[in-house]
Structures are given as structure tokens and as C-alpha cells.
């Protein structure tokens, strides 16, 4: 399959748009918002932390939907979406973890703690890294697609359940910015004024970046498949 010029131009436009948004978001993070009253400059990493988490969430969500759709329709495009979602999601959750650690060192005075939220993102990362290992380990392409869809679904179910279970313990120290706050968070702050503007702008930016990256990854996979087919054809002719 080859791509129409029009669609390529649309993707190119969105890509440049995402790049411009990212630059604007960084300018907002670094210059538009002032340093937070008690946490100071280190709080600026929060916008990327939450933005990349949103990106990971969207990408992994796409994988689960794609897994179910693949098992129902057996259309390989869903498998391509699935693998794109996992790769992009792994990248974003790595960013979430690293920015979180950078923030936690001065605020919590530790890089890592077995807090429910930290535990659940660590498990999420491991489960999807295992998904990539499974794909790498199965040679037959049809079987690989099937197994990847099955594992994507069961890993997600288990992940949801783990997240629910460890949240039952109320002793988290992770701040909750959106939604109800718990009794005793360490390092939370009030979201108002410029902080809110910056936060929403970053979330929007990261959502756009996620869509762009997944789209590029799907196209890359299609090109890889096409190259593979061409190679087979040439070999068959010889």
C-alpha cells in the first residue's frame, strides 16, 4: 500500500503543528508560570510529568481497543495500531517515571518509594515491556498478532485490578491535582491562574503529540511490512 500525497501533507502539517505546540508549551513552563511558592523551580517539571502520563494513558488505551478489534476482525491494521500504542506508551511512561523521580528527590527526599501510584506505574511499564518481549519471541506473524492481542487484553485487565487494589490502601503520599484529594499528600499545591493555563496547554500539547507519534509509528510499520513483502517477491523471482 502506498500513501496519498494529500494524507502525507496532512500528517506533515500536524507534525509541524505539534512541534510548534511543544515549543510553546516549554516556553510557558519555563517563563509564563512563575516558580511555585513552596516548591520553587522544580515544580515546573510537573507539566511534563502529567502531560506524558496522559500520552501513555492514551497510547495504552489505543492498544487495548486495537487488541479487541483485532481478535474480532483479524484485520492486521489493528495489530499495527496495537504495537504503535505500546511503543509510544512505553516511551511516555518512561518520561513520566523519570520526571517524577527528578521531582521526588528534592520534595520527598527520595528518588523512589513503594507508594501505590509509583508501584502501579512500575507494574504498567513492566507489563508492556513484557508485551514487546512476547512480540520479539514469536516468529510466525499471524500467531504473533494473535498472542499480542490476547496478552494486551489480559495485561490490561490485571493492571486495572492492581491499580484498584493498591488504591484501597489510603496511605499514598502522591499529590492528586485533579479529582478528590486525600488526607495527607506530600508536595501538593493549589492549581489556579497561570498554573492552570499552563497545565491545560501542556495536556493538549501532549495529546496532539501522542496522536502524531502513533500515526508516524503506524506508517513506519506499514512501510516495514511493504519492504518485507517486496523482499519476498524479489527473492521469489530469483
Amino acid at each position, binding site marked *: 500500500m502506498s500513501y496519498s500525497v494529500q494524507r502525507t501533507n496532512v500528517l506533515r502539517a500536524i507534525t509541524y503543528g505539534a512541534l510548534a505546540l511543544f515549543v510553546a508549551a516549554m516556553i510557558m513552563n519555563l517563563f509564563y508560570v512563575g516558580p511555585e511558592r513552596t516548591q520553587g523551580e522544580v515544580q515546573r517539571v510537573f507539566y511534563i510529568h502529567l502531560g506524558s502520563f496522559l500520552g501513555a494513558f492514551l497510547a495504552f488505551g489505543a492498544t487495548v481497543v486495537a487488541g479487541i478489534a483485532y*481478535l474480532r476482525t483479524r484485520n492486521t491494521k489493528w495489530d499495527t495500531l496495537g504495537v504503535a500504542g505500546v511503543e509510544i506508551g512505553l516511551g511516555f511512561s518512561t518520561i513520566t517515571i523519570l520526571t517524577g523521580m527528578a521531582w521526588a528527590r528534592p520534595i520527598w527526599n527520595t528518588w523512589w518509594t513503594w507508594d501505590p501510584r509509583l508501584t502501579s506505574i512500575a*507494574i504498567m511499564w*513492566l*507489563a508492556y515491556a*513484557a508485551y514487546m*518481549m*512476547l512480540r520479539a*519471541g*514469536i*516468529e*510466525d506473524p499471524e*500467531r504473533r498478532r*494473535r*498472542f499480542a*492481542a*490476547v*496478552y494486551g*487484553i*489480559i*495485561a490490561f*485487565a*490485571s*493492571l486495572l*485490578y*492492581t491499580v484498584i*487494589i*493498591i488504591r*484501597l490502601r489510603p496511605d499514598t503520599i502522591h499529590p492528586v491535582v485533579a479529582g478528590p484529594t486525600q488526607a495527607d499528600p506530600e508536595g501538593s499545591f493549589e492549581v489556579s491562574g497561570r498554573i492552570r493555563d499552563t497545565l491545560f496547554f501542556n495536556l493538549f500539547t501532549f495529546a496532539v503529540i501522542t496522536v502524531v507519534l502513533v500515526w508516524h509509528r503506524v506508517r513506519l510499520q506499514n512501510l516495514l511490512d511493504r519492504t518485507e513483502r517486496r523482499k519476498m517477491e524479489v527473492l521469489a523471482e530469483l
Partner: protein
Amino acid sequence: MSASAEHTQSEAQVQAAASPRRRAMTPYLRTVGAIVWKDLRAEIRSRELINSMILFTLMTVLVFSLALELDADARQNIVAGVLWVTIVFAGILGLGRSLASEKDRGSLDALLLAPIARSALFFGKMIGNLLFVLVIAFVLLLLLTVLFNVTLFKPYLVLMVLLGSIGFTTVGTLLSSMTVHARARETLLPILLLPVVLPILISAVRASTGILDEMPSEDWMPWVQLLAIADVIFLVASYALFDFVVEE
């Protein structure tokens, strides 16, 4: 040995497919029973799996005792962790072999060709694996009671072991039927299995620790219930997904 095992397997299939109806068992249950019985007979004759699982269990407990340098207080606190880590690791050994040996002998294709429901094959394999894990768990309870001087034979703890083993072998059977087709299946199975069984592991360890510390039951009962829910979720999910794994 392998000839007799193969003979056993084909015999079991013939029984499952063609034997006259006995008592009130449905054909489905008889199929499940035939697969479990086939696995058990093959194991009783060869004893290749259970011996290595039990030896592995002994060694793991030894390693834990020596590596952690346990005094009496520490033992009480971590015995639940030692119990579950050992069950999981020894269980992975058994799960890995259960379908791998079928595939290596070529009997997996025969099982798939047999005119039986795929889910019957799944439950047969799962119950077989569960029995192996329960044997391991029993040995382990005995061993830890003797070596750590903590009484582990309490009704609720035995119930926890049963519930935890059910959830673990359910997911384990599903995933091992996938990894059996992989290149490095021995390493792939634990990598795939461990993140997925974590909810079971967390609730099992929490509840076991609560029971052993003789805390009031409202402290650990929620974990028992959560574990039961997790078992149901995994049973339903594996039942629904197994067809997709073995279709070919």
C-alpha cells in the same frame, strides 16, 4: 518412557471421545477429567516434574533461610512472602513443562485435533497444573512450619493457598500455552506471567500475613474477597481468550 506416555495420551483421547456415558457426568466434565487423569498418569510414571519442583522448593527455602539470616521475629513477618515467592517460582517450572512436553512429543496437535471443546482442554490442563502447585504448596507449608517454627496449617491460610494457586495457575496455563511457541520459552514465561499475577500475589501475601499475625478477621478478610474476585476475573478472561490462543 515417551512411547508409554504417548500411548497413555491417545488412550485418554479415545476414552474422552468414545467411551459410553458413565453415571451423571456430562461429556464435557468427562473430557476435562480425562485430560487431568492423562497428565497425572504420565507424571506418576515419569515423575520428571514433581521431583524437580520439590527439590527446587527445598533449595529455595534453604536460600531464603541463609540469605535473610532470620531471627524469630523476622521469620514471623516474612514467612508469608517466602511462601508465595516460592510457590510462584516453583509453579512457573511446572507450568512451563506442562505444555512444552506436549508440544515436544507432538501430542499437542493430537489434543487440538480431538473433537473436544477447547475450553475443556484448557480446564483439564489448568486443573492438572493446579494439582502440581498444590502438592508444592503442601510440601512448603510443612517445610516452613518445621524450619521456621511458625504454624502454617490454619484453615484460612489453607484456603488462601487454594485461592491464590487457582488464580496463578489459571493465568499461567493461558500464558504458557502462548510461550510454548516462542523461541526462548523458559525465559519468556516468567517475564509475561509475573506482572500479570501481581494482583493475586499482593492480596495473597497481605491476607497470609494478616492470618499469621492473628489480626482480627476484618483486617484481612477484604484481601481474601479481592483474591476471590481476581480468580473469577482471570478464570472468565482465560476461558474467553484461550480459544484465540490455540486456534490453528
